[in-house]
């Protein structure tokens, strides 16, 4: 109870400090007052966006949200569909590891954002950002799944063999369940990177909507209230997706008897 109280106080203090900073700039007649709008005005902008589209782009905020979520969702599903089998194979088969590891090591250190220009050219303004998100999620998932597959207790594999399990059954019934906690870690890390990727990619591909596009346009029009409101929405969406992942994680652990 004590710590909850402290946490609430901490949040109150943060908002108060923000408000005081704005008040100070207003008092000084400083241009900074524009860059640091008051919490109340950002709140008003947020509610205003829920009621009607902004005057510059004219697309309702929920459409921006939907377009970012859609691209993240597609990139996420594609990344999982490829990273899980690749990670399992690379973690369990020497040959797959020998083939895959050097290529992965070449591409992994390149930040996904470095691919934005070329991906936008090749894949366009919808699939380009999807491809960036894909890259951002693919590597953390691949690496965590590979790590999990490598650390499977060998006695469990031996036990499965003596119970008559063939290669495929061992993958399906031993290796894969064993790697699920690792996969969940990869997913949570990947989702954070995914949001980073989508916002950045949408800022560059200045068309077609999306939250990154929205905050960039608001900043261009010096509408910092709406811009901050957009940032708040990004933060909330990102926290929600991570929250959903956490919920799925605890549900899976419960089903597996591992909670």
């Amino acid at each position, binding site marked *: 109870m004590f710590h909850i109280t402290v946490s609430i106080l901490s949040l109150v203090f943060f908002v108060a400090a923000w408000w005081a900073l704005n008040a100070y700039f207003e008092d000084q007649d400083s241009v900074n007052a524009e860059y640091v709008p008051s919490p109340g005005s950002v709140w008003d902008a947020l509610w205003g966006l829920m009621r009607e589209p902004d005057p510059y782009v004219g697309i309702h905020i929920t459409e921006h949200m939907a377009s970012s979520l859609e691209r993240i969702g597609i990139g996420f599903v594609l990344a999982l569909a490829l990273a899980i089998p690749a990670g399992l194979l690379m973690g369990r088969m020497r040959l797959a590891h020998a083939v895959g590891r050097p290529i992965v090591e070449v591409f992994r250190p390149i930040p996904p954002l470095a691919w934005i220009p070329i991906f936008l050219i090749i894949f366009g303004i919808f699939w380009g950002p999807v491809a960036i998100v894909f890259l951002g999620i693919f590597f953390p998932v691949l690496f965590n799944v590979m790590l999990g597959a490598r650390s499977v*207790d060998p006695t469990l594999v*031996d036990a499965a*063999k003596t*119970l008559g399990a063939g290669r495929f059954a061992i993958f399906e*019934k031993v290796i894969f*369940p064993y790697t699920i906690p690792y996969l969940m870690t990869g997913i949570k890390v990947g989702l954070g990177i995914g949001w980073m990727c989508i916002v950045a990619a949408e800022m560059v591909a200045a068309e077609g909507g999306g939250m990154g596009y929205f905050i960039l346009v608001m900043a261009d029009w010096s509408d910092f209230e709406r811009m901050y409101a957009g940032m708040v929405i990004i933060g909330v969406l990102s926290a929600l997706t991570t929250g959903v992942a956490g919920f799925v994680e605890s549900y899976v652990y419960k089903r597996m008897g591992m909670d």
Partner: protein
Amino acid sequence: MRALDDFNLDVAEGEFVCLLGPSGCGKTTVLRIIAGLEIKSSGKVIVHGEEVGETRPRVGMVFQEFALFPWRSARKNVEFGLETKGMPESSRAELSAKYLELVGLTGFADSHPRELSGGMKQRVAIARALANEPDVLLMDEPFGSLDAQTRNLMQKELLRIWSATEKTILFVTHSVDEAVYLADRIVVMTARPGKVREIIDVPLQRPRDRTSREFIAIRGKVLAELDEEFEKARAKELSPD
């Protein structure tokens, strides 16, 4: 490095044989070869007239570390082998219930391994191996990580299960006391590379009394054999070759 050399052993159907020897003598390797988990460089393993090799023999194995799948309930652990055989769910449930009852865990069918004590985990592992209806049950120091009380209880339980199922059991242990308590015959192995040094019959009625004169006499004999091998193993360790 040779783990085993000239290792010959015939085990009769329904017999309980213990393998005993200094650590690193290849006791576990014998079991792993029979289970098809390790490839032998030469020699033959014949189970029920069928050579172990391409065809996996019908053996079950119980490990010291239990090796239960932590994400499966006791029942689902027992059904693992049946699932891989493609047995329909109703027959699987029937068999798992039967073997969980045999090991005295009917009330814990839906518990997961982390909710079970060491002794209970090993009961699940035994039921899991038996549910596959193997010809031979291989046990690799199965009670090695249990406390002394549980260990004694599990030895009694194993003998009960053995007489109920009439399985052939090959049991690796470090404990002379355990071997004399359980086995029809005790195979004392030499230090690495492991050979059969001596096979000692244990012609005592079960349940055996650990404090009886006959029990102590056999234990003394086994210990004497084993001590010599321990000395040899130590001498080998100290002299570089």
